[in-house]
């Protein structure tokens, strides 16, 4: 239960957004060359951090654009919002 400052629309209630989970998990460039362990790592394993986590959000009931959020999962405080393709900020 918190507000998210969409970089395109401004501050809105969290219920307008959909969480896309952990950010910066790149799809493997050569999927055929991955072994089972590497596939499991990409598909299933998650950091699930208690503290500042970098994650993707989508403004599903608004502009429908994706962006990145650095959020403290221990208190839901948003530290930084940055666009897709940008590197995670140093916090």
């Amino acid at each position: 239960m918190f507000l998210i400052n969409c970089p395109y629309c401004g501050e809105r209630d969290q219920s307008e957004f959909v969480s896309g989970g952990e950010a910066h998990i790149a799809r493997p460039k050569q999927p055929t060359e991955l072994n089972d362990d590497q596939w499991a790592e990409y598909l299933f394993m998650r950091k699930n951090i208690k503290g500042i986590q970098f994650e993707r959000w989508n403004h599903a009931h608004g502009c429908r654009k994706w962006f990145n959020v650095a959020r403290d999962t221990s208190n839901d405080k948003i530290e930084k919002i940055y666009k897709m393709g940008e590197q995670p900020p140093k916090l």
Partner: protein
Amino acid sequence: MKNKYSIFSLIKNAFSNHENWQRAWRDPEPKKEYDAVIVGGGGHGLATAYYLAKKHNLTNIAVVEKGWIGGGNTGRNTTIIRSNYLWDASAGLYDHALKIWEGLSQELNYNVMFSQRGVMNLAHNLQDVRDLKRRTHANRLNGIDAVWLETDEVKKFCPIINTSQDIRYPVLGGTLQKRAGTARHDAVAWGYARGADEMGVDIIQNCEVKGIKRNGDAVEGLETTKGFIKTKKIGVVAAGHSSVIANMAGLKLPLESKPLQALVSEPVKPIIDTVVMSNAVHAYVSQSDKGELVIGAGTDSYVSYTQKGSFNIVEETLKAILELYPIFSRMKMLRQWGGIVDICPDASPIISKTSIKGLYFNCGWGTGGFKATPGSGDLFAHTIANDEPHKLNAAFNINRFVSGDLVDEHGAAAVAH
């Protein structure tokens, strides 16, 4: 030796104003070394310690708990117990637990108020009807009691449900497991704690794990707020905080921790004598022995460790409750709370060894761990004591996410556990 709880001990203690009851468990300081340490003093952790001592003669063990026992998800769930899961592996696991529930109060000499009042799952669309019918057939092939109810039978079983076909999501039928029901969740933790303590298990509260010490590929002990504890076997049963503990050992788990909410109403006279769950509209309700309606809501979509949830989730659930039970329209809700649930991609638990010797995880129960408490403890104790899984939890190993042999209950058993 613990005094036995009975009608006679109740009468005897009434004469001394109930001031001389024996302590249910000690409050010891940690020893320097244990044969095994369980991290997490919830129902699953305490049950694990109880069965390690009882069935495997491991009594030099401890349970370390960050807060107080049963203060996490054990005391926050909606107390529903059932075993009508679709897949064979899940059916084996959950029915093993249900069978232990049936004799648990006697075994522990502690009234866990297990009440087999039945659990009914409603179908609201054609796909629900097909899925639930398929599940009843699968259950019966696995020897689990299950019946399909047509809409009029649903109405007969629980008369306060609105079975009008004019509502947004009409009731098209349902399944019923009569052996399912509820239990008093606190009593489960307290009963197991008392039983484990009697066999010599140290239950150490207010003791947070800060680190796991490794020597190469094996564990050596735990750094805690009450000092270093040496041990060769660590069983982690930390629910929402499983990933946090795993990170201390340099492991990554396929889990996401999310808030799950529940709420209770003001107490009223008996009105609903069963448990009714509806996955499609996400509403489930039962009535506690105190008379409160116990209502379970859904999880939030994002990772959070705050033990709160969003109002819009509660609103969705109450909307569905009101459409299905118009009689509750003037009920006041008394309390609302959240717990952090650790969810696996396939919505099945992990009861498993890890790549680190002596480190075991029991996690990923997601939104439905309470029902499995006795079975989970029993099987996890077996896994720790023998360094090998029992055949009932072999399928729930961590390696299934590498091999692809998932136990996919997400779309199968029920969204709401």
